[in-house]
């Protein structure tokens, strides 16, 4: 494993994030709030505008119409691109 820091006592490897990531990535999307990276407005996922007939689903911010997220799940795999999302948040687990 590469380690550019030489501070081996200061950090863990990526597997240590797997548990939290699993909790985050299995969130109920309908409860999620998204902060747009373009206009910084904070909007519920359900209030976004989805263009679904393109090669993948494209979610746009209802405030500025910029792309916040693209997602697909098909024979070629699962893909999620969210450079247009500054923050994705949801209520606590359980």
């Amino acid at each position, binding site marked *: 494993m590469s380690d550019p820091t030489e501070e081996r006592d200061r950090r863990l490897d990526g597997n240590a994030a797997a548990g939290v990531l699993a909790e985050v990535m299995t969130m109920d999307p309908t409860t999620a709030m998204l902060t747009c990276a373009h206009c910084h407005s904070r909007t519920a996922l359900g209030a976004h505008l989805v263009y679904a*007939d*393109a090669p993948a689903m494209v979610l*746009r911010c209802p405030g500025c*119409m910029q792309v916040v997220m693209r997602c697909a799940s098909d024979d070629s795999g699962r*893909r999620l*691109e969210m450079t247009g999302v500054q923050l994705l948040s949801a209520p606590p687990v359980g």
Partner: protein
Amino acid sequence: MSLVSRGFHRRSSTTTTDRLPPGQYDVGDHFPVLSAGPTPRTPPTAWDFSVRGVVDAPRTWTSEEFRQLPREAISVDIHCVTKWSKFGTRWEGVAVDTLLADVGTQGAHLQAFSDGGYTTNLQLQDVTNGRAWVVDTYDGAPLAPEHGGPARLLVPHLYFWKSAKWVRGLELTRANEPGFWETFGYHDRGDPWLEQRYSGD
């Protein structure tokens, strides 16, 4: 399909099969509209077209200047990555060769850019030597906004996401810079006959 119905096919069905890349189906008279965002409504008179980036002489044509350029009529089959193909589509427009003739470039790549923010990357050799056009007419009428009007790129030998709707110009680049769908796992080149749908195909 049963052997019986095969006998009723026109002789041209063999030709049609030959024209259909792997994994595609013939959509017939239908012309699906796939959209990743709202349809830009640039008035044709306000539209212009630019060639910029790694070029010796950047150029912009107003819509009026563009209409004065040598025009070509094109009849081609088109193939969408979502698996529909449409045969014998008729377009009119200006060859990319014409648009690049006087600008001079050191670049081997380009990005087409469009109203609404869409981009797609292409190799220079895929849009020159009579392989690509900027078209403003479909089936004898001005190109409708939902199909990319006032003008779209037409690169019929690649999947149709490369034929950028609402195109406003070409940016020549030295390095390959993936565009909207290419950064989402779609193939960098998109040859339908090689079924280059996704990165790695």
